[in-house]
């Protein structure tokens, strides 16, 4: 009884706070401060048509590196947490087969999903996409293939190598920006090219492809850990 009352009190105070915010809200009418600077100079300085990409990859590149680090940390903690004992590791569980519909559709769809993921992260500087979205799409293809065949073993070493190499490549591209252009993760050490082309905006397509591969490998790694932990007795 007292618990329900306390929950009601917390929620009522939230409602009160949000009501005041809602009442006093006035939509913005123009860009101000740093957003105006990005809108005015983003296309000229960075060369990316998608200004969100320009902000994420170049202006706030450190932020993105922290983000990738957090994902890596999550994958490592889950790996540590769901670690199997030696006996469980060697156990073989044969799952029941899934439906014919899922198996056939996954054979057709998984390559197309991978291709779409690669398209999304290659075009991150032109279209509403990017490394994180593309990586998540690639991992969803892996999730579909696991669902279609629960006995499938994902190649652990391949995931590990892709993840490590793309992480190193990301930091190396950042250091190249520091050495050859204005600062860490500056994209201008490659020629900016024609605005709106696939190979434009300097190093942004490279950086976003590396991020996409890393995110895809990390999410697949997490899926792999979840799948394997079924063996735990």
């Amino acid at each position, binding site marked *: 009884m007292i618990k329900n009352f306390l929950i009601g009190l917390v929620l009522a105070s939230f*409602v009160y706070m949000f009501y005041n915010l*809602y009442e006093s809200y006035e939509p913005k009418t123009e860009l101000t401060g740093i*957003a105006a600077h990005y809108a005015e100079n983003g*296309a000229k300085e960075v060369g990316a048509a998608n200004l*969100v990409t320009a*902000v994420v990859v170049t202006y706030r590149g450190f932020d993105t590196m922290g983000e990738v680090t957090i*994902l890596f940390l999550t994958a490592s903690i889950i790996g540590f947490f769901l670690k199997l004992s030696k006996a469980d590791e060697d156990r073989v569980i044969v799952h029941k087969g899934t439906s014919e519909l899922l198996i056939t559709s996954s054979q057709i769809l998984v390559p197309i999903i991978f291709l779409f993921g690669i398209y999304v992260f290659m075009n991150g500087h032109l279209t509403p996409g990017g490394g*994180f979205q593309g990586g998540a799409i690639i991992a969803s293809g892996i999730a579909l293939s696991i669902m279609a065949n629960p006995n499938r073993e994902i190649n652990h070493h391949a995931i590990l190598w892709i993840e490590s190499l793309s992480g190193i490549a990301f930091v190396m591209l950042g250091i190249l920006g520091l050495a050859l252009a204005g600062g860490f993760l500056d994209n201008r050490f490659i020629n900016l090219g024609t605005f709106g082309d696939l190979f434009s905006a300097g190093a942004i397509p490279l950086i976003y492809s590396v991020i996409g591969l890393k995110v895809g490998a990390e999410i697949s790694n997490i899926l792999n*850990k979840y799948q394997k932990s079924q063996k735990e007795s």
Partner: protein
Amino acid sequence: MEYLNLGKISLLISFILIIIGFWGILSQKNIIKIIISFTILDTGINILIVALGWIQGRTAPIIDGSVEQAANHNVLNSIVDPVPQALVLTAIVIGFGVTALLLAYAMKLFRAKRTLEINQFNDLKW
């Protein structure tokens, strides 16, 4: 419809989602339901941040034909704020990480007691 514009509607939806999320976290007993409440709370906060960057009558911050036709080729007067959208991209990834960790904990807790009812985990209660 001067009063209820798109910004206010998204603000209202985000507040409702945030309150539903808090209610679920505080009152649900099943661990999976608590995790789902966390994701609803996440979604509400993300909608709130994007809604704060919205400006009436403008388009997405991607410079292409539609931006150049609007407002006499002036980017400054034809796009919404790109910074909240970039921040929400970060927030979505962090939300993913939190959800993945919570699910791993839920799996471990289920292995320990064969139940997902949070009332059963009273070892640290006195």
